[in-house]
């Protein structure tokens, strides 16, 4: 259940639209289903009142959309940013990917988003509608007469359970109260995998990655992946866009994707959210984050504008690649 309401957001937005502060609004609208929320650009108060949505499925991080949208509108575009989105926002500014002057950022609090896969685990398929009902989500399905009540806490997305910050690191205006950076347990799962034997890890990833259909949704949604010409679009790269032919291609894609955002990934979790195959991709990114923290000191991408990403930086005292395995590694 979100503390801030849709009506508050619409009211604020309509006011800013009508006084000319902004000329467009990047917000959420309903997709095919109640849980399938799609980013949309709103330009009129009518459109906003009718189609704007704010609920537990508004996970989409809009930062990346600014790269394209700031070039398309006259005047400023309003963007809603949840705390984790603000890190991506800063990271994109660091990389000069959009013009800050063209954006009016409204920070909004977030109580955690729901993961539809978890909802389906409880209520099954055939969901026709989902409504917020206090602490619960009221889920109606094709097969049951009475709607099921599911506690929002039980179906919270993994990235929200392990939320790293309720604090906004960028905004022009804040709605509601700001929170704090949180000591989360987000590296626990990485540590669990690290503690396995190489054989077990290999089996784990073989199982996960073999489901990949190379839809590229993970790349497309990632706010750190904003190259105009992506290596995965180049037919001569040997990793061009097509379904993986074998397990080598699966691994190749995933290693390269994760490596390209290493040091710049803010751990926003969009990659795992959009994956239709529920592959826990963020674990690859978190592995890089955890390593970078351990090798080169704590670093949070996007915490401030202008910080230098660890992999485009160095010191003369850095550890040697061979030494990374001598850190009291279980399988060393």
């Amino acid at each position, binding site marked *: 259940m979100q503390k801030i309401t849709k009506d508050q957001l619409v009211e604020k937005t309509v006011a800013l639209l009508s006084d000319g502060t902004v000329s467009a609004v990047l917000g959420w609208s309903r997709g095919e289903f109640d849980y399938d929320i799609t980013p949309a650009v709103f330009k009129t108060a009518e459109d906003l009142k009718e189609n704007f949505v704010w609920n537990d499925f508004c996970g989409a991080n809009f930062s990346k959309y600014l790269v394209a949208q700031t070039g398309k509108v006259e005047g400023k575009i309003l963007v809603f940013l949840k705390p984790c989105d603000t890190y991506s926002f800063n990271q994109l500014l660091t990389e000069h990917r959009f013009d800050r002057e063209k954006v009016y950022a409204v920070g909004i609090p977030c109580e955690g988003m729901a993961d539809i896969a978890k909802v389906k685990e409880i209520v099954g398929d055939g969901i026709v509608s989902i409504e917020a009902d206090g602490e619960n989500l009221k889920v109606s399905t094709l097969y049951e007469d009475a709607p099921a009540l599911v506690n929002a806490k039980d179906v919270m997305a993994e990235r929200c359970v392990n939320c790293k910050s309720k604090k906004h690191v960028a905004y022009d205006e804040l709605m509601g109260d700001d929170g704090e950076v949180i000591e989360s347990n987000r590296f626990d799962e990485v540590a669990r995998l690290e503690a396995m034997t190489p054989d077990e890890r290999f089996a784990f990833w073989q199982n996960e990655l073999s489901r990949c259909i190379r839809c590229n949704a993970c790349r497309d949604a990632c706010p750190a992946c904003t190259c105009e010409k992506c290596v995965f679009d180049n037919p001569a*790269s040997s990793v061009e866009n097509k379904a993986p032919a074998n397990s080598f291609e699966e691994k190749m894609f995933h290693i390269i994707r994760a*490596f390209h955002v290493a040091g710049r990934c803010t751990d926003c979790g969009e990659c795992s959210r959009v994956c239709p195959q529920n592959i826990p991709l963020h674990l690859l990114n978190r592995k890089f984050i955890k390593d970078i923290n351990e090798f080169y000191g704590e670093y949070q991408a996007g915490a401030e504008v202008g910080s230098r990403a660890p992999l485009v930086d*160095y010191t003369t005292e850095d550890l040697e690649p061979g030494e990374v395995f001598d850190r009291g590694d279980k399988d060393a």
Partner: protein
Amino acid sequence: MQVKEYKPLIVAFCCNWCSYAGADLAGNNRLSYPADVKIIRVPCSCRVNPMFILRAFQRGADGVIICGCHPGDCHYTSGNYYTRRRMAALFSMLDFLGIEKERTRVEWVSAAEGAKFAATMNEFAETVASLGENKRLEDLRCKR
């Protein structure tokens, strides 16, 4: 049926300014190292894109080693410092995916270190040989 004797195929990326010259020196001094070490010359160790390494494995390498100037001696001043960070991250990721960490290595070899070059290659080839064929990053389509 004839069983082919297994000899590891090793790809060695050597930077033009130090390690490639080091390999030359090893040859001039008639030091021996396995013929299955295939040297690919790169302008600087930091020219090695992680994809090159994966591609080498795909095309049948059993081990990949990157050689560059000693830290501080890079012809381009700082290239090998970046190599060092990138490869530390990449190798750790390969290990995370369960790929044998002994198959990848970075060594600094100067133009004067012909003996070190030969010794490094001998030792690396032995390590890789003891691991056997690269199965975890193989691409069956590329098998001869």
